[in-house]
């Protein structure tokens, strides 16, 4: 060893505990909010019986994807399959977790991406943080999440948010930076305020790139939500985990197929939300 042993691990540990001791009350508020969000989504998704849900979902997917009939029919088949495997409630719970974490990740990520695109200082601060967030193995986030929030859906969701946010920030930043100079000049030349420029020119022009970020964010959320079952998140991930612990190939495999179906539907849907160039 060239350097004396540095107590990096200890320092992080101390920091995490200090945060927990001093800002625990904030964590509790945050925890309650997230819990509400998840149950909100869950209640909405489980409000209708599966059959009615599938019809409504098919119509919404058809309209949302600008009349993509193939996607609508595929979704119906996928949901029917999930239902017939007896995984309906678990799947809805997984979707609720994915939507909750993706929503929070986007609510933080898109504005951060906009700020990073507008301000070089912020960009230079955000960039290494993003690199760190994306290269750190996702399991590592689980540890502080447990310390702050205990076991259950909330810490799983927090770890998922941290893991899924970087592409939303990156692609929002990229999309806005890629807005052609002339379009920026058009906005200025016609006398836009900074907000008008952002909402009437930059965001709409950057939308396809931002939507690619949304898509990645949702897909990463889904992948992490499964891992988050290790710290008590529910849904299909938990089912897979139980399958592993009991070496129950059938149960693990069925839950896996459920996840794949959800992944495909969410992926295609988010890819089709905006018109292709």
């Amino acid at each position, binding site marked *: 060893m060239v350097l004396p042993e540095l107590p990096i691990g200890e320092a992080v540990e101390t920091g995490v505990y200090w945060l927990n001791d001093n800002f625990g009350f904030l964590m509790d508020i945050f925890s309650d909010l997230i819990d509400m969000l998840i149950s909100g989504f869950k209640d909405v998704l489980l409000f209708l019986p599966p059959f009615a849900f599938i019809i409504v979902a098919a119509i919404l997917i058809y309209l949302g994807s600008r009349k993509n009939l193939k996607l609508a029919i595929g979704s119906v088949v996928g949901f029917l399959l999930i239902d017939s495997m007896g995984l309906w409630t678990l799947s809805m719970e997984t979707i609720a977790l994915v939507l909750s974490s993706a929503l929070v990740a986007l609510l933080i990520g898109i504005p951060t991406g906009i700020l990073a695109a507008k301000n070089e200082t912020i960009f230079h601060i955000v960039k290494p943080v993003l690199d760190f967030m994306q290269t750190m193995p996702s399991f590592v986030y689980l540890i502080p999440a447990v310390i702050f929030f205990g076991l259950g859906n909330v810490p799983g969701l927090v770890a998922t948010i941290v893991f899924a946010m970087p592409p939303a920030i990156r692609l929002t930043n990229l999309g806005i930076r890629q807005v052609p100079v002339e379009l920026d000049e058009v906005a200025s030349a016609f006398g836009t305020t900074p907000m008008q420029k952002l909402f009437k020119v930059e965001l*709409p022009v950057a939308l396809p790139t931002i939507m690619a970020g949304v898509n990645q964010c949702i897909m990463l959320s889904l992948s992490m939500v499964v891992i988050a079952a290790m710290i008590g998140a529910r849904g299909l991930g938990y089912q897979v985990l139980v399958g592993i612990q009991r070496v129950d190939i059938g149960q693990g495999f069925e839950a896996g197929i459920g996840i794949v179906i959800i992944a495909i539907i969410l992926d295609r849907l988010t890819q089709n939300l905006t018109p292709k160039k």
Partner: protein
Amino acid sequence: MGLSGSGKSTLLRCLNRLINPSEGHILIDGDDIATMDDKDLREARRKKMSMVFQSFALLPHRTVIDNVAFGLEIQGISKEERYAKAEEAISKVGLKGYGSSKTSQLSGGMQQRVGLARALATDPDVLLMDEAFSALDPLIRSEMQDELIALQDKLKKTIVFVSHDLDEALKLGDRIAIMKDGMVAQIGTAEEILTNPADDYVSEFVAGVDRTKILTAENIMKRPDPVVSVNSGLPVALQLMKKHGMSSIFVVDADKKIKGILCVDAAAPAAKEHKGIRDVMRTDINIITPDMPIKEIIPMMAENALPIAVINENEKILGVIVRGSILGALAMKEED
């Protein structure tokens, strides 16, 4: 007008402060754009001037009418009113019926019409056009130039048009600024620049120009001295011609209105028969206005050997053009 990199776009962008000028003033209606605060500048950009871009710069997520209405939308004008104004601008540029089209479906020429309509929709006093037609095919470009001239005849805006094409500048510009290395080398009318270049750079620049398209009757005509009154006798006319060494002389009435021309070979024998000027003067002369380009005068000269009379709107004679005048004008080019 200037070569690529001479600073045209930079200068144009200083006018609406897309680029901040480091010094100097930009006065529109007495207000200095260069020192305005953000709020006043926004107001000036909304109401006083608008811009047309070389690359069209249409907003890809908007239809034609929403592109055209963009400036009005920024001003917070209601949808109904801005659509009405946008439709009007769309008709002005000849795109009626294309309002709901996607801009990507239009040809280059049509896209630039949308760009022009967008600039016209806010009814600004000043139009800034940066190489607005440079990205178009030569035929379409020429068509757009003609339409811009026709439109300008009606709208009477101040248009600052940047071009790197001398022919385009000469065709469109009432006054032309020739730029070099970020500075204005000369500013003036096409005639002034062609006949009186400020320095070697400018004269070299305009060396290749077809002067017969730019120079007009006014630039080459001679003073119509002397003329003879239609009420004089033939001997007076002959005397004048002899004194000034002319073979023909224009005949005018008391108000200096042109009546005809008297040629010496017809007048001399007629004088002996005691006839009057009216009996022998010719009335089949070419009469033109001062703004006729030399290019159109040359074929007239070929058809009719008589001098050409240049008159004003009251038919009063302003000048005469003889063969020598045209040769003189063309020779000027070779001297450079």
